[in-house]
């Protein structure tokens, strides 16, 4: 039954997403989520005999491993150095802003409103907040033919912020997941073990892939290494996310200039992973949770937005970014996407978050639907204000031809 359902989710999700995008102009992820919602146990899923969704967990772990690998390998050290302080400062600002504001607002909200979970919950959901959806930003930049310093900053930020987000999330999870008493050694192993193992497996995978000329064989090595590492992390108790990111980073580092062959085959899997993430997230939909916790969802949405916008603007100013960047950079950071959904799904499957996992997935899913629409409008507003719309390439000044 589960295999049949996965097939239906992939095909129908893609159809929903593509048709929605074509006829209504909404991002594909909206269609993926809505299709998943239809199959939630509280809706059609119940009638079809789908009463549990725990079986999705191993797939979520592997899929997150694939995404973390790609994020870890997205930039070389020299490229990171060339990014410039404007991009780095804005990114640190927005990540710090989102984490702090969401943590404080949701945490205080929990104290003031009785049925909102406590500080641990606030910390974990704050750690999910800084991730963004590069696809949404790139789509806006492409649609409006944007070009200029703000556009470059936005593209740089969305390329690296998920890496920071995953690091923060992994550290938070290592701290709150360790339990009282032996928290420090467990947290150290969770982080250190992941990084060391990831680097070693990355080195071995890179050396092995040098001997393979066929892309199909390299794909086996790369996906095999990711799955192996995710499995090893479960057996040895370290962070699968950090390990997979370290795997990507290390493979990129040891490959020298020739990194394309190590990432291009795996990049082909990214959309498949996101269709699974978004439809699985939709399947966690619980109408009563969304209704009962509507104030919390709105609280998270506004706190995240304020933290991202304010943090990015402050970070850009401190880093000495041009005025046009510092004043508008925050507006392009709102869309929340697959990485946030994946992290929320990971929590939903963890026994440590048995009480709050479903709530977290519903909050992140609902706000993803909101930010995918509002986030594009906000990014367009920022680009227009910066005067960077219709500035790209040979089409500059030739709109409508």
């Amino acid at each position: 039954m589960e295999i049949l359902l996965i097939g239906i989710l992939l095909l129908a999700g893609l159809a929903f997403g593509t048709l929605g995008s074509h006829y209504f102009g909404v991002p594909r992820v909206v269609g993926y989520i809505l299709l998943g919602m239809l199959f939630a146990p509280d809706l059609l899923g119940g009638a079809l005999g789908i009463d549990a969704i725990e079986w999705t967990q191993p797939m979520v772990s592997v899929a997150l491993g694939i995404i973390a690998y790609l994020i870890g390998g997205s930039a070389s050290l020299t490229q990171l150095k060339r990014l410039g302080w404007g991009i780095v400062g804005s990114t640190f600002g927005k990540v710090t802003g989102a984490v702090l504001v969401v943590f404080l607002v949701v945490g205080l909200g929990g104290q003031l409103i009785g049925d909102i979970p406590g500080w641990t919950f606030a910390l974990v959901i704050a750690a999910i907040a800084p991730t963004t959806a590069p696809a949404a930003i790139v789509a806006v930049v492409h649609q409006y033919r944007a070009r200029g310093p703000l556009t470059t900053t936005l593209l740089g930020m969305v390329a690296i912020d998920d890496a920071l987000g995953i690091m923060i999330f992994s550290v938070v999870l290592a701290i709150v997941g360790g339990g009282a008493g032996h928290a420090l050694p467990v947290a150290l192993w969770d982080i250190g073990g992941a990084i060391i193992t990831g680097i070693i497996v990355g080195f071995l995978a890179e050396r092995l892939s040098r001997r393979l000329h066929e892309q199909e064989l390299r794909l086996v090595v790369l996906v095999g290494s990711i799955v192996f590492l995710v499995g090893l992390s479960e057996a040895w108790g370290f962070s699968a996310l950090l390990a997979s990111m370290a795997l990507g980073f290390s493979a990129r580092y040891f490959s020298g200039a020739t990194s394309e062959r190590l990432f291009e085959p795996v990049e082909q899997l990214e959309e498949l992973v996101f269709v699974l993430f978004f439809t699985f997230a939709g399947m966690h939909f619980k109408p009563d949770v969304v209704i009962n916790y509507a104030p919390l969802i709105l609280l998270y949405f506004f706190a995240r937005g304020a933290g991202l916008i304010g943090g990015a603007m402050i970070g850009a100013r401190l880093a000495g970014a041009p005025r046009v960047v510092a004043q508008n950079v925050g507006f392009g950071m709102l869309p929340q996407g697959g990485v946030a959904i994946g992290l929320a799904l990971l929590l939903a499957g963890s026994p440590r978050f048995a009480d709050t996992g479903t709530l977290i997935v519903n909050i992140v899913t609902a706000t993803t639907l909101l930010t995918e629409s509002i986030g594009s409008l906000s990014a367009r507003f920022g680009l227009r204000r910066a005067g960077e719309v219709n500035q790209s390439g040979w089409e500059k000044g030739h709109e409508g031809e």
Partner: protein
Amino acid sequence: MKASKWLKRHPVEAVTVGRDESLLQAARQLLNHPETRDIYVLNEAQEVCGHLSFRRLAGLFLAHQRPTHTRRQLIERITPSTVREYMDEHVLCVRPDERISDVLHQHMERRVEDIPVVNDDAQILGVIRVADLLRAAIEEEQAETRTGDA
């Protein structure tokens, strides 16, 4: 047929660029030779140390026209650099005394259209174009058909 023999019959000079040249320079070089699909990167000792395909260069220069990017492509788009950082270091070469049929499969698998011929010092002697191999194969088949018909 051995690579050296093929090169004598079908001499094609390699298009090359220094590894510290700009991507723009590499693109201009390639555009000056429309039939060439691969540009070979040379180090200071004039040894082949990498290659860049036409598709890769076009992808980098036309990135702003693409509606979707991976994170890796985003970083590449905003941190332009020299040829050294974008070239593929793994160049599958053929030695003059090697048979083309022994190396063709690997080249086809890697989706490259030119096969560089290099000597023992990794200096490039010429290029075997897959398009020329295809042309030769078709001519051979047609000749066989004509012989059969006769």
